[in-house]
C-alpha cells in the first residue's frame, strides 16, 4: 500500500536567463493518509514549487510524484484538472474567492466542474457552509465578510468535494493572529476528523501546530519529522555557513 503523497527524487528546474534555478532539487518524501504536515521554508526555499506540484498545478521536471498511487507526471492537462477537482482542496492566503459570486455560488464552483446537479450542489454547498459557521450568510458576497469569514468560505470550498488532500498555502498570512489561530484550529479539527492536511508556511509558530514538519531549503529537504522535536524549528543554515558568516 503506497502513501497518499509520494515524492521520489522530484526536481523542478527553471531557466531564468543564463542561470538554471533548482526550485526543487531531488525531494523525496511521503505523506500518509490522515497526516497533518507543515511544509516550512523561507521564500525561495522551494515550498511554493512543492505545493504547486502536490496540487497538480505543475509537474516535476525530473523524478516522480504519485498521488494516491497515480503518476501525476504522466497526466495531460485535462487529467490534471480532474485530479485537482476530485482529490485536492485548495486554501489560499488571499482566499481567492470569486468576487461577483455569493458564498453559495463560490462554494459550488468545484461542484460545477464535477458535473453535479444543481439541487445536489445547493445541498452540498449549504451543508459545508453551515459546518464552517456561515449558514446564515449563504447569499452574501465575499466583500461583505471579514477576512476570517472569507477564509472560512475558502475552507468550505476546499471541503465541498471531500478531497483526499487539503492543501493550505499560507492560510493565515492575511489574517490577524487571533483569526489566524481560529483558522489553524479549523485545520486541526479537520485533521482530527480524518482529513489529510498539508500546510505550507514560512512561519515556524504556525508550522508547529501541525504534527509533522518538512523543512525545505534551496529546494532540498533539510528536516522531516515530528513538529514538536527541537530540531524542527532550528534553522539548519544558522549552524552551518550562515552562522559562520554571522560570526564574522
Amino acid at each position: 500500500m503506497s502513501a497518499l503523497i509520494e515524492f521520489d527524487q522530484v526536481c523542478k528546474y527553471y531557466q531564468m536567463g543564463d542561470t538554471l534555478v533548482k526550485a526543487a532539487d531531488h525531494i523525496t518524501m511521503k505523506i500518509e493518509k490522515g497526516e497533518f504536515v507543515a511544509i516550512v521554508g523561507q521564500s525561495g526555499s522551494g515550498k511554493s514549487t512543492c505545493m504547486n506540484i502536490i496540487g497538480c498545478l505543475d509537474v516535476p521536471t525530473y523524478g516522480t510524484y504519485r498521488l494516491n498511487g497515480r503518476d501525476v507526471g504522466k497526466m495531460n492537462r485535462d487529467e490534471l484538472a480532474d485530479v485537482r477537482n476530485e482529490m485536492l482542496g485548495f486554501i489560499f492566503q488571499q482566499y481567492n474567492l470569486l468576487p461577483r459570486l455569493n458564498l453559495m455560488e463560490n462554494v459550488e464552483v468545484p461542484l460545477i466542474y464535477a458535473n453535479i446537479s444543481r439541487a445536489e450542489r445547493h445541498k452540498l454547498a449549504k451543508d459545508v457552509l453551515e459546518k464552517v459557521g456561515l449558514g446564515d450568510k449563504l447569499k452574501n458576497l465575499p466583500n461583505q465578510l471579514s477576512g476570517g469569514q472569507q477564509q472560512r468560505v475558502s475552507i468550505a470550498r476546499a471541503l465541498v468535494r471531500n478531497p483526499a488532500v487539503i492543501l493550505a498555502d499560507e492560510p493565515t498570512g492575511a489574517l490577524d493572529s487571533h483569526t489566524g489561530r481560529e483558522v489553524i484550529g479549523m485545520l486541526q479539527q479537520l485533521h482530527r476528523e480524518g482529513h489529510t492536511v498539508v500546510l505550507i508556511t514560512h512561519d515556524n509558530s504556525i508550522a508547529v501546530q501541525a504534527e509533522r514538519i518538512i523543512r525545505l531549503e534551496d529546494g532540498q529537504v533539510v528536516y522531516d519529522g515530528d513538529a514538536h522535536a527541537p530540531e524542527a524549528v532550528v534553522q539548519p543554515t544558522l549552524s552551518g555557513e550562515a552562522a559562520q558568516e554571522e560570526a564574522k
Partner: protein
Amino acid sequence: MVLETFRQALQNVWSNKLRTFLTMLGIIIGVMAVIVIVGLGNGMTRSMRDSFSAMGTNTLSIQIWGYGSRTATVDDLYDLVKKNPKLLSSISPQLDFSDNTPKVGTTTYRYSEMYGVDENYIEMKGYTLAKGRNIQYMDIADNKQICVIGDYINRTAYGGNAVGQTIKLGPYKFRIVGVLKAKISNPDQQEGSDDDSVYLPYTTAMRLSNESSPDSYSAIMVDEGQANEAKAAVEQELYDIFKSDNAYYVYSASEWLEEMNKMINMVIVILTGIASISLLVGGIGIMNIMLVSVTERTREIGIRKAMGAKEKTILAQFVTEAATTSALGGTLGIVLGYIVSAIANQVLPMFTDGMDITVSPSFNSIAAAFGISVFIGVLFGYLPAKRAARLNPIDALRYD
C-alpha cells in the same frame, strides 16, 4: 454544464452593463443597417415589380422600322403567333396615335394615350366593355373613324354616356362606339392611367399618320416565365423577314424587370457590404473588450483552474460570453432596425414623390443578421478565450 456556462456568461455580461452596451454598439448599428437596407431593397423591388406588372409582364412589345424596302405586313405578324402557339397566345398592332390629343368641347386630355389596334386588342389586354360595341373587323377594313374610350374620359367628359357621341383627336373627328369598364377603382388616380385611353382601328391610325404598315405591336405570351424564349422566337422570325437585326426591336417588361431586379440586388449587396463593415468593427470591439476581460480576470481563471476547470471549459465560458454579448447586440439591432424601418415608412413618402416605396424587413434578413452576429461573437471571442484557456494556473493565481 452548457446551461451553467450560459448562466455565467449572462451574469458577467449583466455585471458590466455599460461596458457591454458600448461593446455591442458596433453590432447593434451594423445589424440595424443591414436590416434597414435589405428592407429598403425589398420595398424597392416590390415597388418596381408592381409598376412593371401594371405594364404587363406577360407582354412583348415589338417595334418595327423596316430595313430598306423590306417590310413586315400585319399578316406576317399574325403568322408569327400561329407558328409559336406554345410561346405566344395573341398579337395586335399597337400604333401610337398620342400626338393627336383628345379634345371634348374646350377640355383637352393631355395625358391620354391613344393606340391604333385590331379587334382582338381589347380582350387581349383584359379590358371589358361597359357599354356599346368593340372595334370590329369591318371598322378595320374600312378605316373607319370610330373609337372605344376608357372610363376616365367617359366619366369626366360625357357623364358616362359617351356612346354615340363624337370626340376630336387632334384635327380628326371620331365617333365613340364603346366605353370600357374602369380598371382602377379610385377615380382620382385614373388620369394618365390605362383608364385614360382611346383605342381606334389601326388602319385608321395608319391612314391618318400616312404610314404603310404598323410600326408597333403588342403580343401576349403564354408563360411569362419563358419571356426570353418568346422574345428569341419573335426575333428569329423577324430576322428571317428582314435578314438584318437592325430593323426591329423586341422588348419584354419581365425581362426588364429581371434586369432591374438584378441592378437593385447589386446595389443592395454593395450597401449591405458597407453596412457589414460595421459588423466587422463591432466584432473587433468585442475581441478587444474580451482581451481586456481575460486580463482582468486572470486570477479568476487561475482559481477556476485550481478548482478543476479544464481548458475547454474556460474556452467555452469566454466564447459563450462573447457570443452572448454579440447576440444581445444583434437582438437590440433587430429591434432598432424595426423601429427605424417604421419611421422610414412614415418619412419616405415625403421624398419619393408618390412612388410607393416601403421598408419591409424580411424574416430571412433578420435571421441572417442574428446568425451573423452570433458567428462574429464566436469568431472574435475565440482568440481571447483561447488565451484565457491557455493561461498557466500558477501564474494566473499569482496575478494581481
